[in-house]
C-alpha cells in the first residue's frame, strides 16, 4: 500500500497540488493588478480608455469563463510568437499562416524549440496564470470599481478643496480608503478562484484532476505492477475533500483578516466590534 502511494505517478499527483497552490499564489496578485488597471481605466476621464475598461469587465463577465480558457491558451501563445516574429525576423518572407499551420521563424518560437521540457512546462504554466489573471482581473476590477464608488464623495471633495490634483486625489485619498470596501468582494473572489483551479487541465497544465483521472482509471496487469479496477470515484472523493478543507481554511483565515482590518474602522462591522469589547 505504501509502495502504491509513492509510485512516480503519485509523486506527480502530489507535485501537482503544489502547482495549484503556486498558481493561486501568483494569480491572486496578478489578477488584482489587472483588476486595478481595469477599474482605474473605467473611471478615467479619457473616453476611449473608459470604454476599454468597461468593455473588458462587461465582456469577460458576460461569457462563461470556460470558453475563455479553451481558446486563450492558443490565442495568447500565437499572439506572443507573432509579436516576437515581427520584431526578431523582419526579413522573413514566407507567410506565417501556411494553410492550417502557424509558422514563425525559429528565433521567435516560445519557448525555443530545443529548450528542455521544464522550460516548456514553465511557459505553459505562465500562459495559464496569465489567462486566469485576465479572466479574474475582470471580476476583481468590478469589485474595485464598486469599492472606489463607495468611498464617500465628501472625502474627494475635501481633497479637491485642499488643492490636490486629480492624480493626487486618486493615489492619496481614494486608493488607501477603498480597500475596506473591497475586501468582502475580494475574499469572495479568492474563494471563486480556488474553485476554478480544477479547470487548469483545460489550459494544458497537468493538474490534480489530470492525475486523479489517470491514476483512478482501470489498470491492466500487463502494463503496471499495481493493477486495479475503476477507482476514479475514490480519487475524486479525495479531491472533493481537499477542496472542502482548502475553502474552510481560507474562510477562517479571511474572517480573521477581516476582523483585524475592520478594527477601529467607521463601518457597521467596526462599530459592532467596538460595542462587543
Amino acid at each position, binding site marked *: 500500500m505504501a509502495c502504491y502511494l509513492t509510485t512516480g505517478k503519485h509523486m506527480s499527483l502530489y507535485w501537482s497540488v503544489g502547482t495549484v497552490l503556486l498558481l493561486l499564489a501568483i494569480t491572486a496578485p496578478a489578477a488584482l493588478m489587472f483588476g486595478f488597471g481595469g477599474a482605474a481605466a473605467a473611471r478615467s476621464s479619457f473616453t476611449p480608455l473608459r470604454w476599454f475598461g468597461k468593455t473588458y469587465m462587461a*465582456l469577460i*463577465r*458576460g461569457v*462563461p469563463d470556460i*470558453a475563455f480558457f479553451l481558446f486563450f491558451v492558443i490565442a495568447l501563445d500565437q499572439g506572443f510568437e507573432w509579436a516576437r516574429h515581427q520584431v526578431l525576423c523582419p526579413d522573413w518572407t514566407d507567410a506565417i499562416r501556411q494553410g492550417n499551420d502557424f509558422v514563425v521563424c525559429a528565433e521567435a518560437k516560445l519557448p525555443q524549440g530545443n529548450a528542455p521540457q521544464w522550460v516548456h512546462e514553465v511557459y505553459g504554466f505562465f500562459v495559464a496564470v496569465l489567462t486566469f489573471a485576465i479572466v479574474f482581473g475582470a471580476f476583481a476590477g468590478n469589485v474595485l470599481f464598486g469599492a472606489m464608488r463607495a468611498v464617500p464623495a465628501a472625502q474627494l471633495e475635501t481633497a479637491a478643496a485642499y488643492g490636490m490634483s486629480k492624480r493626487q486625489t486618486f493615489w492619496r485619498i481614494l486608493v488607501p480608503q477603498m480597500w475596506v470596501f473591497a475586501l468582502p*468582494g475580494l475574499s469572495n473572489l479568492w474563494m471563486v478562484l*480556488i*474553485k476554478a483551479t480544477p479547470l487548469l487541465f483545460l489550459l494544458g497544465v497537468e493538474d490534480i*484532476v489530470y492525475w486523479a483521472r489517470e491514476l483512478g482509471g482501470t489498470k491492466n496487469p500487463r502494463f503496471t505492477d499495481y493493477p486495479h479496477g475503476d477507482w476514479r*470515484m475514490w480519487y475524486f472523493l479525495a479531491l472533493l475533500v481537499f477542496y472542502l478543507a482548502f475553502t474552510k481554511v481560507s474562510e477562517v483565515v479571511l474572517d480573521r483578516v477581516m476582523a483585524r482590518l475592520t478594527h477601529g474602522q467607521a463601518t457597521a462591522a467596526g462599530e459592532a466590534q467596538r460595542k462587543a469589547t
Partner: protein
Amino acid sequence: MSCTQTILDYGLRAIGYGERLLPRSDFTLCQQFTLIGSGMIWNIYFGLFALMFGFCFAVALAMGKDSPRVLLRKPSEWFIFIFRGSPLFIQFFFGYFVFLSLKPIHPMFESLSAAWLGALIVLFCNTSAYSAEIFYGALKSIPKGDTEAADAYGMSGWPRFKRIVFPTMLRLAWPAYTNEAIFLFHSTTLIFFTGFPARQQRGDALYYASYFADKTFNPFVPYPILAMYFILVTLLIIGVFGIANKRLNRHLPSQARPKLRLRPQIIR
C-alpha cells in the same frame, strides 16, 4: 446548401431532430451559428429547470439554516457548505460516478447517469446551496421592525412567513439572486465537458463550439459565436429579473429602490 436549409437540418439537432450526421467538411458560418445556437437549447433547459426547482429548495434550506432546531439547522449548514465549498466541476465528475454506482441497485435510477437528469440534479443541488446562502443572508437582514409588527398583529407560523418574512427576504436577496441566475447559466457549459457523455452527438453550445474548433482547427470563429449567444442570454436574464425586481419593490419610494447591479459574488 442555402442557410435556410441548414437551419431546417440542424436547428433542432441538439435534441435529436433533423440531419443525423454533423457536417464534416466545408464548414460554413451558417452551420456554426445554427449548431451552436441549437446547443443553447440544452444550456437554457438546464439553467431554467435548475433555477426553478432550486429556488423552492433554496428557500427551505435558508429557513432550515435559520432554524433554532439543531436537527434542521445542521443538515442545512452541511449541505450548503459542501456544495459551496467544492468546485462544481468536481461535483459533476463525482456525481456521475455516484449515479453510475446507484444504477445496478434499482431500475428506478436508470436515467440518472444521462445528462438530462443527472446533470440537472447536480446543478439543482449546487444552485440551491448558493441561493440558500443568499436567502439566508437576506433573512438575517430583514428589518427588526417588520417582524415585530407581524408579532404585534398576532401573526405567526405560515401567515407570518407568507406575508412578511418571505416577500421581504425575496426583495432583499433579489439583486444577488440575479447574479446567481446569470452564473448558473454560464456553468451549464461545464456539463458535457465533465463526466456526462454526449449521446448521439447531442450536446450543448460549448460541445458544438469545440466540435467546430476541433474540425476547423480555428478557435477564433466558434468561441466568439458562443460568447455572443451567452451575452444575449445574460441580457435577457437581466431584463426579466429587472422587471421582477421592479414589482418586488413597487411599494417603496422610487429613490429607495435598489437597482440591479451585476456583481461577481457567486460564480463557481
